C-alpha cells in the first residue's frame, strides 16, 4: 500500500504541560459527563447503558430462576398439587423463554456494550443512541412478557411455541400472542445490538490494531453478532406467519388448508440451534480473556481459537434438524444433521484444548474467577459429551423429550454460559465499580452452586432414561422417579442459595471500601487501562496499538495515554468524538462525532413497545397512533443526531494526524450499519422464501392450476414500476453529486408513487385471480410476500421523504451526502427483494409446468 500511514513513525508528542493536560481533561469531562439525578435515564454512554443492561438481565435471570424453583417444588414429590397444571405450563414456558430471550442473549449484549469499547481502547461504540434504544426495547418487552404471569395469561406452549398448539386459538390464548409480539420486539433490540457490535469491532478499533492483533474477545463478539444477524431473522419471519394465522386466520400451519405445522419447527430451530452457540461463544470468550491474565502469558493457539469461533458459527447452522429427529423426516435428512452435529464438536473441542494447553504451559494464579472458569469447563465438557450422544439419531429417539435432554441442555448452558459469566462478574467487577468483591463469599457461592447444580441435574440423566418426560406437571409414585426428583429439588435449592450469596456479594454496598489499584489482576487487555477513580470518557487519549496484549507489551502506554500524548486528547469543539479505522489494519479514517444524552431514543422505544403491546390486544387504532409516534421520534432522533455537517472538513487528531470529520459511503459506520441491517432483513426474507419451497417440497399440490395463478402481466408491470422506483434513487444520488439538488429531490419524491403503483399492481394481480389468504397455504404465501414488499415500500417512502427534506434544508448536500448514499444502498436490497418475489410468483410456477 503506497498511501499507508506508518503509525510507528509519527512525530513525537509535545512535552508534557500540566496546565494543558488539566484544561483538556476538564473539556473532556464536560463533554462526556453522565447526566445526574432522574436525567440519568437520558444517558447513552456505553458505561451507563451497559450497566443497566447487565442489571436488568440479571433481574430477569432471578425471576426465571425463581420460576425454576417453583417447578422443582412442584416436582419434589409424586402427585403433588402445589401448582395447578395450567400455572405449571405457564411457569416452565416462561422459565425457558425468559432464560433464553431475556437473560442469555441480552447478557451477551450487556457485557459487550460494557467492556468492548474499553477493550478496543475506544471512547464508546459507534452508535451509542442505538444501544440505548435497544436497551429500552429490551426492558419494555421483557416486563411485558414476564408481567403476563401475574395476570394468569403467560404463554404456556413451551419456549418453542410449537404449532398447531400455538396456532389454534382453541388451545392457546393471549399467552401465545404475548410470546410472539413481546419476543419479536426483543429480537429488534438484539439485532440493533448486533449491528452496533459488528460495526464496533470492524470500524472502532484503536489505530494500529490489525486483524492479527485483535483480542480474542472481540473476535468472538464479531462472530456472535454475525450469527445473530443470520439466526434471529428467520424466527421473525416465523413470528410473522404465526401471528398472521392467529390474528387474521391466514393458512400457514393448518393441515386442513394446505398448511404444515412442521414449518414452524424448521423456522424456530433455524434460529434455535445457532442461538445455543450465540449464548455459548460470548461466555467462552470471557474465559478466553480471563485465562491469559491468570496464566500470565498469551493464549496458546490464538488463531486456532479464531478458527474454532468461525467454524462453530458456520457449523451451528447445520444442526437445526437434530431437534426434530422424531418428526418423521427421511432418515437420510436426519443423518446429514447428525453428521454436522458431530462435526461441530471438533472446533468446540479445539477451544477447550487451547485453554488446557495455556494452563499447562504456565503456572496459573489461583483466584475466584479461575475457580468459576474451571468449574465451567468441567460442567461444559460433561454436557458436551451427552451432546455427542443425543446427536446420534437412534439414541435421540430414545432420549427425545425426556429428562435426559433437560439434563444435557442445562449442563451445556450452565457450564458453557452461566459459570463463565459468573467468572466474568468476579473478574470485571473491579473494572466496573473500582471496588473488590469478597473472595470468601466468592468461594462459598462457587461451591454451593457447583455442588447444587450437579446434585440437581446429574440425577436427571437417570430420571430421563427411566422414562420421565419433559414438561410433565406431576407423576405417580409407581413411576419410580420420586427419589431422584427429590434429590434434584434439593440440589436446585442449594444452587439457588449459592446464587443468593453471589448476588449479596455483588450488590453489597461498598461505599467506604478502598478503591482498587489500577489493573489489579495485571491483565494485558486494554480495558484495564482505565484510570482509578474512573472517568466517563473511557480513555484519556486513544492509543496506537501494535501488540496483542498492550498492557504487557507496550510498557510506556499507560503513561502516554494519561498524559494525552495519543489521539483525540481534547474536545475543543465540545463534541463526543471517536476514531473510525479500517477493517484490515485499523488505519485511522476519520473522526466520528456521536450523539450525547437524549430522550428521543427513550420515546422511540416506548412508542415501539406500545405498538407491539397494543397489537397483542388487537387495539388497532391506538397501535397506528403509537406507530406514528415511533416514526416521529425516530426521525427526530435521526434528523438531529446523525450525518451532521461538520463545522470544518477536517481536524487535527493529535501527533500531526489530520483526519476528515465527515464520511460517507463505505468509509462511514452508518453505511455499514445499513448494509448489516439489510443483510439481516434479507435473512428474514429468506425465511419466507424457505417457507415457499418447504410447502412446495412437502405438499404434492402446493402450486395451483394455471387458472388460479396471479396474472403474469400485472406482476410484470408491478416489477417494472418497482425497479423504476429503484432507478430514481440511483439517479437522485447521481444528480445530487452533480449539484442538482432540485432534480434530486424530485426524483426521490417521484419514487414514492412509483412504489405505490408497483405494489398496487401486484396486489391487483393476486386479488383479481381470487386469492384469499385464509383459503390455502399458497394464497397465504403469495399475500405474505406482497405484504413483505409493501411494508418495505412504506419504509422506503418514509426514507425518501426524509432524505428529500434533508436535501431541501441543506443538511444533505452535494458534498456531504451520506443520507442519499445510505438510501441508495437500502434500495439495492429492495430491488433484489422485488426480483426474487417476482421469480417466486411468476417464474417458478411457470418453470414447474403450471402454465
Amino acid at each position, binding site marked *: 500500500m503506497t498511501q499507508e500511514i506508518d503509525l510507528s513513525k509519527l512525530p513525537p508528542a509535545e512535552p508534557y504541560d500540566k496546565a494543558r493536560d488539566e484544561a483538556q481533561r476538564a473539556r473532556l469531562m464536560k463533554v462526556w459527563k453522565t447526566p445526574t439525578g432522574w436525567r440519568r435515564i437520558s444517558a447513552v454512554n456505553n458505561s451507563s447503558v451497559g450497566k443497566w443492561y447487565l442489571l436488568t438481565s440479571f433481574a430477569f435471570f432471578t425471576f426465571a430462576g425463581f420460576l425454576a424453583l417453583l417447578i422443582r417444588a412442584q416436582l419434589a414429590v409424586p402427585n403433588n398439587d402445589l401448582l395447578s397444571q395450567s400455572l405449571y405450563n405457564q411457569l416452565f414456558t416462561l422459565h425457558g423463554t425468559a432464560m433464553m430471550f431475556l437473560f442469555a442473549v441480552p447478557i451477551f449484549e450487556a457485557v459487550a456494550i460494557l467492556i468492548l469499547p474499553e477493550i478496543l481502547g475506544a471512547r464508546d461504540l459507534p452508535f451509542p443512541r442505538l444501544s440505548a434504544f435497544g436497551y429500552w426495547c429490551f426492558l419494555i418487552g421483557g416486563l411485558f412478557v414476564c408481567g403476563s404471569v401475574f395476570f394468569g395469561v403467560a404463554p404456556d406452549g413451551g419456549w418453542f411455541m410449537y404449532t398447531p398448539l400455538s396456532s389454534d386459538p382453541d388451545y392457546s390464548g393471549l399467552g401465545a400472542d404475548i410470546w410472539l409480539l413481546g419476543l419479536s420486539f426483543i429480537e429488534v433490540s438484539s439485532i440493533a445490538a448486533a449491528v452496533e457490535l459488528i460495526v464496533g469491532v470492524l470500524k472502532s478499533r484503536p489505530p494500529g490494531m*490489525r486483524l492479527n*492483533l485483535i483480542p480474542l474477545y472481540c473476535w468472538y463478539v464479531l462472530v456472535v453478532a454475525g450469527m445473530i444477524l443470520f439466526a434471529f431473522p428467520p424466527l421473525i419471519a416465523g413470528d410473522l406467519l404465526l401471528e398472521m394465522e392467529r390474528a387474521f386466520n391466514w393458512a400457514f400451519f393448518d393441515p386442513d388448508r394446505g398448511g404444515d405445522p412442521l414449518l414452524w419447527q424448521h423456522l424456530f430451530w433455524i434460529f434455535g440451534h445457532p442461538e445455543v452457540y450465540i449464548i455459548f461463544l460470548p461466555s467462552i470468550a470471557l474465559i478466553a480473556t480471563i485465562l491469559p491474565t491468570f496464566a500470565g502469558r498469551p493464549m496458546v493457539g490464538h*488463531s486456532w481459537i479464531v478458527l474454532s469461533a468461525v467454524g462453530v458459527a*458456520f*457449523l451451528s447452522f447445520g444442526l437445526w434438524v437434530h431437534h426434530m429427529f422424531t418428526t418423521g423426516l427421511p432418515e*437420510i435428512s436426519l443423518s446429514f444433521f447428525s453428521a454436522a452435529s458431530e*462435526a461441530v464438536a471438533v472446533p468446540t473441542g479445539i477451544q477447550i484444548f487451547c485453554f488446557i494447553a495455556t494452563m499447562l504451559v504456565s503456572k496459573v494464579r489461583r483466584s475466584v474467577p479461575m475457580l468459576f472458569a474451571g468449574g465451567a469447563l468441567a460442567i461444559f465438557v460433561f454436557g458436551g459429551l451427552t451432546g455427542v450422544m443425543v446427536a446420534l439419531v437412534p439414541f435421540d429417539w430414545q432420549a427425545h423429550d425426556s429428562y435426559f435432554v433437560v439434563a444435557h441442555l442445562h449442563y451445556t448452558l450452565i457450564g458453557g454460559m452461566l459459570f463463565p459469566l459468573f467468572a466474568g462478574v468476579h473478574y470485571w467487577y473491579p473494572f466496573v465499580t473500582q471496588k473488590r468483591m469478597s473472595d470468601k463469599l466468592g468461594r462459598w457461592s462457587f461451591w454451593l452452586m457447583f455442588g447444587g447444580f450437579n446434585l440437581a441435574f446429574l440425577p436427571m440423566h437417570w430420571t430421563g432414561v427411566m422414562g420421565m418426560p419433559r414438561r410433565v406437571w406431576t407423576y405417580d409414585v409407581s413411576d419410580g422417579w420420586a427419589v431422584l426428583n427429590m434429590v434434584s429439588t434439593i440440589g436446585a435449592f442449594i444452587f439457588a442459595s449459592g446464587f443468593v450469596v453471589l448476588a449479596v456479594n455483588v450488590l453489597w454496598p461498598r461505599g467506604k471500601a478502598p478503591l482498587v489499584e489500577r489493573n489489579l489482576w495485571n491483565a494485558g487487555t486494554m480495558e484495564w487501562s482505565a484510570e482509578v477513580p474512573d472517568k466517563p470518557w473511557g480513555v484519556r487519549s486513544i492509543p496506537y496499538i501494535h501488540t496483542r496484549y498492550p498492557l504487557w507489551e507496550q510498557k510506556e502506554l499507560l503513561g502516554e495515554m494519561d498524559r494525552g500524548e495519543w489521539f483525540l486528547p481534547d474536545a475543543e469543539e465540545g463534541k463526543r468524538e471517536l476514531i473510525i479505522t479500517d477493517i484490515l489494519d485499523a488505519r485511522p*479514517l476519520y473522526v466520528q462525532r456521536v450523539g450525547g444524552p437524549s430522550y428521543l431514543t427513550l420515546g422511540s422505544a416506548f412508542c415501539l413497545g406500545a405498538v407491539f403491546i397494543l397489537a397483542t390486544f388487537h387495539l388497532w387504532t391506538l397501535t397506528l397512533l403509537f406507530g406514528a409516534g415511533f416514526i416521529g421520534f425516530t426521525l427526530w432522533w435521526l434528523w438531529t443526531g446523525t450525518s451532521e455537517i461538520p463545522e470544518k472538513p477536517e481536524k487535527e487528531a493529535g501527533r500531526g494526524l489530520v483526519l476528515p470529520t465527515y464520511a460517507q459511503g463505505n468509509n462511514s459506520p452508518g453505511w455499514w450499519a445499513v448494509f448489516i441491517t439489510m443483510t439481516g432483513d434479507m435473512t428474514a426474507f429468506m425465511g419466507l422464501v424457505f417457507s415457499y419451497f418447504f410447502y412446495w417440497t412437502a405438499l404434492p399440490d402446493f402450486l395451483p392450476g394455471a387458472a388460479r395463478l396471479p396474472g403474469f402481466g400485472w406482476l410484470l408491470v408491478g416489477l417494472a414500476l418497482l425497479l423504476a422506483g429503484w432507478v430514481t434513487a440511483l439517479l437522485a444520488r447521481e444528480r445530487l453529486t452533480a449539484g442538482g439538488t432540485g432534480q434530486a429531490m424530485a426524483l426521490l419524491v417521484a419514487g414514492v408513487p412509483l412504489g405505490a403503483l408497483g405494489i398496487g399492481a401486484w396486489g391487483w394481480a393476486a386479488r383479481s385471480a381470487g386469492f384469499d389468504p385464509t383459503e390455502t397455504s399458497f394464497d397465504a404465501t403469495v399475500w405474505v410476500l406482497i405484504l413483505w414488499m409493501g411494508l418495505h415500500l412504506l419504509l422506503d417512502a418514509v426514507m425518501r421523504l426524509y432524505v428529500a427534506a434533508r436535501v431541501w434544508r441543506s443538511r444533505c448536500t452535494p458534498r456531504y451526502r451520506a443520507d442519499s448514499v445510505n438510501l441508495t444502498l437500502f434500495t439495492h436490497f429492495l430491488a433484489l427483494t422485488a426480483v426474487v418475489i417476482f421469480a417466486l410468483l411468476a417464474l417458478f410456477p411457470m418453470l414447474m409446468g403450471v402454465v
Partner: protein
Amino acid sequence: MAPRNKTVPPGDAPRVIDQGSVWILVAAPSIWAAHFLLSYWVAAIWCAKLGRGTTLMEPRWIIAGLGALCIAAIIGLAVLAIRRYGGVFVIIEEITESSERARDRFVGHVALLLCVLSAVAILFTVIPGMVLGEC
C-alpha cells in the same frame, strides 16, 4: 467524497474485496454450508417427490460428486491461503508482528485451518449419503 488530506488513506472496502483479505476466512465454511444445504435439498426433494422406500442411488452420486467438487474448491482456497497469504499449518503460531505481511499471514493461517475443518465437515456430510440406501 469527503475532503481528503494527502496523509489520509483511501477507503477500505475496495481493498477488502480486491485482495479477498477477509472474505477468504468465510469462503471455505461457506462452501461447506452450500454443500450441506444442497445435499439436504437434493435428498429431501428426492424423497418427498418420489416417496418413501425410493432408492437413493442417484442422490448418493450427486452428493458425493458435489462433495468432490467442493473439496477441490477448498483445496484451491488452501493453495491461495498458502501462496498469496503465506499461511502455514503449524500448531503453535505467534503471528503478533505489527505489519501488513503479518496480518496477511495470520489471515492465511486461519483460512488454512478453516479449509481443513470445512473439508472434514464435508466428508462427514458425504458419509451418510454413502451408507443409507433408501429414503
